[in-house]
């Protein structure tokens, strides 16, 4: 069986700066993979390449046997709306919209009707334990509450892959753990694969396995260290 999502020899430069120098990674259906490594090693760049936000300069990114690196920007952004969810450290909720409007947004973009989208969004806020925040705007929420809403928004379309870049990096230990626990629980329920970028070993410990990047390549000392579920 081929992997759900894979990168093969992925290379990406920013001008003269090499960020990824040939990375291989395969993610199976429903699998949670942590990507760790020191600052600047290329974790976020790898996540952006795998999610089709950035195009690799060389190498391939394959999703369901399709080389998405060859797709147009429009086709990739459609894929991100239907099959992928993204979750960053902060700042992805639209400040002018309420929580329920924020969570409904991906459904509206995917063509759902307004009433339907709102009611599904409200269910998702409930699932993440923040039903009471439905009519609040992000500015009135704590960091943890915002990340719960952002998680609901990232998962509301029931994506096949969730890309999470330091999703709990700005939260205190306990809040971070609760939010991470919710992300992992819901991803397992949906069978959604997760690419989880983090610095923290305690966060990587939620994943099924871990890959370590160093200076834009896989660190062989981090290979084979992962233990299967």
């Amino acid at each position, binding site marked *: 069986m081929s992997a759900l999502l894979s990168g093969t020899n992925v290379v990406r430069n920013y001008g003269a700066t090499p960020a990824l120098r040939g990375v291989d990674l395969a993610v199976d259906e429903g699998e949670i993979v942590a990507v760790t490594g020191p600052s600047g090693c290329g974790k976020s760049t790898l996540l952006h390449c795998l999610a089709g936000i950035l195009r690799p300069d060389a190498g391939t990114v394959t999703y369901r046997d399709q080389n998405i690196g060859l797709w147009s920007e429009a086709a990739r952004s459609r894929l991100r709306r239907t099959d992928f969810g993204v979750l960053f450290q902060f700042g992805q909720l639209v400040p002018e919209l309420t929580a329920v409007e924020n969570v409904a947004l991906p459904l509206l973009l995917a063509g759902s009707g307004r009433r339907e989208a709102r009611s599904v969004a409200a269910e998702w806020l409930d699932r993440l334990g923040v039903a009471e925040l439905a009519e609040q705007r992000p500015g009135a929420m704590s960091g943890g509450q915002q990340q719960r809403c952002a998680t609901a928004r990232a998962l509301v379309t029931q994506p096949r892959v969730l890309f999470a870049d330091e999703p709990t990096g700005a939260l205190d230990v306990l809040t971070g753990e609760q939010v991470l*626990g919710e992300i*992992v629980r819901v991803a397992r329920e949906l069978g959604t694969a997760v690419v989880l970028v983090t610095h923290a*070993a*305690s966060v*990587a*410990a939620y994943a099924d396995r*871990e890959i370590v990047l160093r200076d834009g390549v896989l660190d062989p*000392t981090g290979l084979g260290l*992962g*233990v299967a579920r």
Partner: protein
Amino acid sequence: MSTAHVLLGLLAGGPRHGYDLKRAHDESLPRAKPLAFGQVYATLGRLERDGYVTESGQDRDGGPDRTSYELTDDGRRHLDTWLSAVEPPAPYVTSEIFSKVVVALHAADAERARDYLVAQRAAHMSRMRELTTAKSTPAASIGDVIAADYAIGHLEADLRWLQTTLTRVAGLSKEVTN
């Protein structure tokens, strides 16, 4: 904490006498409790009895205590086994981990220290994953969760140190090969 292994590690560089060993021990493990002379000689006695070290000569002008010791082949093998053995990831800071890296750098090289660090890191990560799974199950009681938290917190501190040391040691081996 095993003084015997540290002494074996120090002897891997060549013969030394007791006073010299004490000084080298205290210098290379500055956070450890300074070694008492009595302990140095008692440990050397046991190591000699077990066939891991042997007397290699007397330093005439130094008085009666200036016997120097050297590592035997058995001693070298014993040290080797200890340097390779992964410690069970314990829920507290084990200075054994730290000593092992220091001694590996003394008795062998950065490569050796790196190999150990990689294996130890893997064992720690895998234990951390087990504890995280255990405390995330709905059946976990508050007691289970805080016990896991305690262990995870300490493992995390070890892991941060292992990671940083791995990076520093990688830098060392680069300097040596360049």
